[in-house]
Each structure stands twice: as structure tokens, then as C-alpha cells.
């Protein structure tokens, strides 16, 4: 396995997916994987299967729902979209993420400056 790839933390992937679905509207698993790949400039590379584990977790929490539809190449595909509860969750998670990221960033800078 390619070791230069960042290990995507479970919670982080959930947050990414939630954010992506919220800004892009309904997407299927493949579309999500492409979008995340594109957005992260290939920094984040993942076993695309883990997207599905993440989607199941989100669905079980009631933050996203799914619907069967037809993909661009005329295949049957499941489209996921964010629920109202998911939107709320996203706002909360994003805030806390920024807070933590800020703290971690500061700590790291301090450590380098020493």
C-alpha cells in the first residue's frame, strides 16, 4: 500500500462526505469518491470502499438518506443526500473541527519555532 497517502481518520471522512453532499447535492458513492479526490488534489487517497462504510454510519445516524436512481452511464445507483438533522450536525462538526484544527496548528507552529 502507498505509504505517502494520508490515513484518513474515520470521523474526518464522515465530515468530508457530509460537507460534500451538503454543497453538491445528491451524489452516488462513485461520484463522492471522485469529488473528494478532486477537492483534495489527490492528497487524500483512500480505499474507495471505505466511503461506503462511512455512508452506512451516516445513514444509521439519520444524517443522510438514500434513494435509488440512474447514474450518468445508465446504471442503477444509490444517491445520497443530507437530511435536515445532517445539516445541523455538519455545522456543529465543522465548528468543532476548525477549533481543533486551529489549536493543533498553533501547537505545531510553537513546536517548530522553538
Amino acid at each position: 500500500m502507498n505509504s505517502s497517502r494520508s490515513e484518513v481518520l474515520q470521523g474526518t471522512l464522515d465530515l468530508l462526505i457530509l460537507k460534500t453532499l451538503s454543497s453538491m447535492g445528491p451524489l452516488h458513492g462513485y461520484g463522492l469518491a471522485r469529488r473528494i479526490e478532486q477537492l483534495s488534489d489527490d492528497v487524500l487517497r483512500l480505499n474507495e470502499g471505505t466511503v461506503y462504510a462511512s455512508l452506512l454510519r451516516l445513514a444509521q445516524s439519520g444524517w443522510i438518506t438514500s434513494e435509488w436512481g440512474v447514474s450518468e452511464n445508465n446504471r442503477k445507483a444509490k444517491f445520497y443526500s443530507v437530511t435536515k438533522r445532517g445539516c445541523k450536525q455538519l455545522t456543529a462538526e465543522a465548528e468543532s473541527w476548525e477549533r481543533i484544527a486551529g489549536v493543533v496548528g498553533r501547537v505545531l507552529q510553537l513546536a517548530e519555532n522553538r
Partner: protein
Amino acid sequence: MNSTRIFISRLKALFHQRADEREFDEEVHAHLALLTDRYTRQGMSLEEAQTAAKRQLGPDTQLKETLREQRSVRFFENVLQDIRFALRQLRKAPAFTVTAVLTLALGIGLNTAVFSIVHAVLLRPLPFKNADQLVMVWEQNPHRGWYHNIVSAANFNDWRKENHVFSDMAIIDPFLTFNLTGSGTPVEIQAERVTPNLFTLLGVQPLLGRTFVREEGRPGSARVVVLGHALWASRYGGDRSIVGKQILLNGEGYTVIGVMPVGFSDVYSPSVDSTAQVWVSALDLSDPARDDHNYTAVARLRPGVSLKQAQAEMNSIAARLEKQYPGNKDWSVGLVSADDETVGNSRPALIILLVAVALVLLIVCVNLANLLLARSAVRLRELAVRRALGANRRRLLSQLLTESLLLSIGGAAVGLGIATFATKSLIAIAPIDTPGIETAGLQPVVLAYTAGIAFFTAIIFGLFPAIRLSNFELGSALKESSRGSTQTASAGKIRRILVSTEFALAVVLVVSAGLMIKTLLYMHHIELGFQPDHVLTMRVPLNDVKYNERQQAEFYQTLLERLHTVPGIQHATVCHGIPFYGWSGQGFVTQENPHPAPAEMPDANYLTIAPQYFDVLRIPLKKGRAFTEGDTQNALHVAVVNESLARQEWPGQNPIGKRIKIAWNEASWLTVVGVSGNVRTQGPEANFAPEIYAPYTQHPWLKTPRQLLIRTNVNPLAVVPSIRRVIRELDPEQPIADVRTLDAVTLQPLALRRFLKDLLTGFAAVALLLAAIGVYGVMAYSATQRLREMGIRIALGATQHNVLATILMDGLRCGLFGICFGLAGSFGATRLLSSQLYGVKTTDPWIFASVTLILTLVAAIAAYFPARRAAGVDPITVLREE
């Protein structure tokens, strides 16, 4: 909150696991296809593109596993798996399963049935508003041993004025009947004359119309009546326009003002027969005599006042009244809660039954624990393998308990069927005056109880074998063959202890049944002083408006003359007061002691009768003569007294020719012309009391004799149609009521004990059967285990007889051990039964001896069959098999 949501969605997922996985497969498939498309578009060959796509998606099985894990609920999956596995195990051993489910069904079913009765009779509150505030108010005279005496109007009026503990008090005159005529056949109906506040005091609303208003309580006010639901439905077809119409009671018009709801009856109904069907008011409470006791009183406690506080206040009021009025000497007041008043009699018996039936269930549990242990030899290997494959002890334990629970649920399901039938039978054989019993059934509370006992039963019989079985040395369990292992040897010891326990429990039940049987045998042979067989009784109440006194006497005279011509009838008489129909106590004086102080006034049961009364009942005449047709109003007024009275008043003298006077009948001295044998008028448990018989033809008013007593030389009920015909010929409007054989009347006081005896005997039989099965099971198993040992013994010269004796003794030892403990336990346990025993001690040596004998026999018989099989073994075959 979120974790709950996840848990719930996982629970839901349990039910469409396969569909979920299929959908996921489709989803992944689509994803792969899209990736492949992309790579081929970038110029890869199809094969390369597919491989790349797969790699990018990640390992397929691992992903599926992760998702499955994420979707699943471990605990529930385990439970479902346990259930599936347990069902398979139980199906594999049908004989075991059927035995277990049936014994459980018996235990749980019987317990459910008894509980449904207990619930209906004891646990459900009386159908009145705040029924716990209702109390019955009795007068009592401890000096004479009267604790439940009806009350006098004068005292009641003072209580009502002076007390601060009751929010209201009401009075019922329960000894009232009417002849209801008009449309339909004439009938005699029970009625009660009540104070108008009774219904509001009880907190019961009428179904139709209204109840009495204050003004209608005054004597002489307009004649109005409230109908009971049963009469309204049967006689008037539930006609809602009945309110405002008139009905004829004793020939007088009464306006119907209301109809009570279904099932309404007063707190106090002396027996089911006399439950009132109509209520009238206008009760005259102006009688100033303190010692004229006529009424039932009921009161409602003020909120927050306890029965004890109320009793204290009533004691002080009664003490004051006792000082003030000589007629009240020795009289006080006794309060009884309405609940105790109605179910007080049934309570001890029902509690005994509940305990007894719980013992049966306990025996069932022990029996099942035994069966499970017997299976342990078979199960041990299987469990060891599962353990070796990674199941931990908790998993095995939960697996075994799941099996127990399934058996218990099966038992409960079949048991409910048994309970439905058993409840109906219990209602049928219970004493008819058990209050509320007809409402017993499988109500939600009862079903909850069933579920509860099913669960606890499973724990009780399943836990111990499960703990034992799941706790083993893995290595040795896998190595050992099923026979001769230490595990099974110690299990054998435990199984013997369990069988002994069954015997001990069974002994308690059999001793209890034995004590009740002996009680009833004793009571059946109590000398009653009269012969109730072949005697018919019924009431023929004449209407006072239609018949004046002379006409009433003529009516009865003609009736008796005609009855004597009916084939099958030997003797016929009319009377007021027959044995077992209560006590009509009257004070009396003798010529020797004409002016006793009120408290010293002797008291006797006073009966007015027609000639032949003594012949019908076969009461022996000890001295003098009985009454004749010549004892008329103008002749010398005469009386017959019983031996008890004669001995009390004139010890050592000849009573014939002595004179007595009934206290309220100052005008007339009665001359004693005969002495009769003593009769237990008040039931088999009562002592002989003084009695005075007077000819009804000399009674100052004639309306009292209403009871017909007829001795037949055929089945008494066979002559009923002829009697009806004779009465119809005399007066087509004349009702007859309460047709019963005297045998039935005299058995009524024994009904509760008989009910208890029947059930205890039944439970004891079940217990014996289960204990026998227990011994048989253990002995049969141990005999199989010891076949080789027996083979060797026989080969070494033991006779078949020796082998038989060895196994038989083994079984007997089990039984006797239990019997000893059981007998010891019975000394304590039967104390609960003592209130129901009569003429027999709880430690009756005969009972204990015969119970020991019976149970020893049961143990011997149950052990005999396996013993005989072991003795018949061919040593060569057995030894060669090894």
C-alpha cells in the same frame, strides 16, 4: 441519543439483512463499472482497468465484513442464534421436550387458574367508589359471644348524630321479600328497605332514572322502587321506558324511579340467594327500643380517618350509650371493613390454595431440573466442542438458559389452555357464595402473572443445571466418554437430592390433603340432631294484602292436606325457621324467674311450626307430645322445648307442665308439653343451643310460616312438579321460591372446606405423580449406568433378587430421605391450614403415618420397574459389550 438512534436502525436492519447485502453488492458493482469505464477512457485495456478499479475500491470481503459488523447488533444476533439452536436441540429430543412442556403446562396452568380466582375475589376492589373507606357497623355483645349482630334503630340514630369519624351512615333492612305480580308469572323477590342516602354513600350511580331523595326516606311517603339490573332485564326485557311506570309489589303499586347498573348489589348480602332485586325506602327508624336489633348498618370513613380511629370513637359513644340505657348493657360496636366483610371468609382458603399450587410448581421445577441434569451427560460433549471452538462460558450459559426459557414459554402457552379450562372448573366447584368469583378469567393482569411465573420458573429450573453444565474442565470433558465420568457421578448425587426434595414437597401437599379429608369426614359424621336426607324445602310466601291472617292459616291447612295425598310425600309441614337457616334469637322468661335483668335474660332460637315438623325432620321427641291440630288459638297455648333448654332452666326437674313466655309477647304464657332432641340449628360447627318451638296456629300473628318442609320416600326433587301443581290449583298467582333439598342446605356450610379439600387432593395427586416420575427417571438412569456392575455381580453369584433389592433400596432411600424432611416441614406448613381444620389436629398421627406409607409405596413402585430390568440383565451380554 445518537447511539440510541444507531442501535434502533441496527435493530431494524436485523430483519432485512439479506436485502441490505444484496443492495450493497449492486452499489459496489455500479461503482466498479464506473471506475472501469473511467480507466478504459484513459486508455487502459479492459482487463487492466478492472484490476485497477478493484484495487482502488479495496479488498471486497474485508469491506463486506466491516459493513456487516457495523450493521449488526451483537447481543441480538446471539439471542436469535441461541433460539434457533435451542429449537433445533429441542426438536432433536422430542420425548424430553414433550415431557418438559407438559409438566410445565400443568404447573403454570394450575397456578394461572388459581391466581385468576384469587385476583377476582381478593385483589379486585369492591365495585364502589373509594371502597376502602366503606365499613360495616355491627353491634356486639362479647358476654354472649355475639360479634356480628344487626343493629337497633335507636342506637344507629345516636351514632349518626354523635360521631365525627364517618362522612355518612346508612341502614339496610335486608329481611324483606315481596310478591311481584302483574305481567308474567308471580314471583317472590328479595328486597331491601334502605335509607335514601345508601346509594350516594356507596358512590354508585343508577343506570336509568334516579335513586331515592331525602323526602322518600320518610315513613308513609309515596311508594317508589329502584330495580336491580337482573330483574329489569329478565322481567321487563330491559325496557328503558320502565322509569315512571308502576309495578305491583304485594299487590300495591310502586312507581319505578330508577334501575341500577349490572352487577350492583349491596355490601352486605347474607348469601347469594338473598341478593336484593329491588330497593325501597321509607324506613321507619323511630323505634326507641335499644335491644330491638333489626338492621345492617354501613358507613363511609371520612378521608384520612383510619378504621382504628373510627373504632376508638365508636367505642366511646357505645360506652356512653351503655351507661345511659339499660337495654344496652354489655353491648358495644364493632367495625369491619367492607372488604373483610365480603371476602374475609374466602381469604384464608384462597391463600392456602395459592401456596399449595405454588408448591406444585416448585415440584415441577425440581422435576425439570432433574430432567435437564439427566440430559447433561449427552450435552457435555457438545458443549465441550463449542467451548473448544471459542464460545466463552457466558455464551454457553445463555445458550442453556435460552433452552429453559423456550421450554417455559411452550409450557405457558399450553398452560393457558389448561388454565382456561381449570378456571371454569374452579368457578363451577367453588362455593356459590364466593364474592366476585364469576368474574374470574384470563384478564391482562392474570396473563402478566403467567408470563412472570413462566420466566421465574425457567430461571429456577434452568439456572442450576446450566451453571453446572457450563462449568467444566475442557480437557477432561473432551476426553471422557459419557459414562462413568466424575461429572455424571456427582450429577447422580445431585439428582438424588432433587428427587428427595420432590418427595419432601409432595409430603406437605399430601399431608394437607389428608387433614382436609379427615376434617370433612369428621364433619359429615357430626350428629346434627335431624335427618336431612329425602327432605325438600321451599318458600311459599303469602301476600299479606291478599290474604288476611285467617285466610293464610286456611291456605296452609288446605295446602298441607292436599300435599299429603301426593304420591311420594310422606310428611309435609310449614314452619318459620329450618335448621342451618340462621338464628331467630328471642329472649324468654320462665315462671320460676319471671323478671330477670335485661342483660341476664336467657335467649333461645324461636321457631313457629305446624304439626309433623318433628316427623319431617325426624327430630326425636324425648318427653311429652308434639303439636296437633287441636292446638288452636282458643286452646291452651303450648310449646315444645329442646333438651338443652330444659337442662338449662329446670335441671333435674320434669319440664312438662312448666311455663315460659317469649319476652315480646307479654300476654301469653306457653305451657311446655314436650321435650325434643337437640338440633345443630346454626351449622355443624355450632353447639346445641336452647330452642323453643310453638305451633304457628297459636302465634299472635300468622304471617311467619312460609317455609314448606316435605319428607318424601322418593328423590325429593321428583315431587316438585306435583307440589307446583297443587299450589297453582290453590292460587295461580302464588309464587314459590328457593326450592332445595335439605341435603344441599346442610352441605352449604361445608362448601368452602370441600372446595379446599378437592383442590388440595388434586394438587397432592399431581405432586405424587411428579415425585414418582422423578424417582423413576433417576432410578432408570442409574440402573442403565450400573448395568455392567450388575452384570459382574450376577456373574460373581449375586441372585436376581439381590440386584433387584439393591436398586429398589436405592430408590427407597431417596424417597424416605425426602419423606422425613417433608414430615418435619409439614408440622410447620400445616399451621397455615389450621383455621380450616375441624375435629382434627395438624399433628394427627394417623395422617402422618398413612402419608409415610403412601409415599414409601410410591417410591417403591417407581423404583421397582427399573430395578426389575436391571435384575433381568444377562451378564454375558453386558460384559461382552464392554
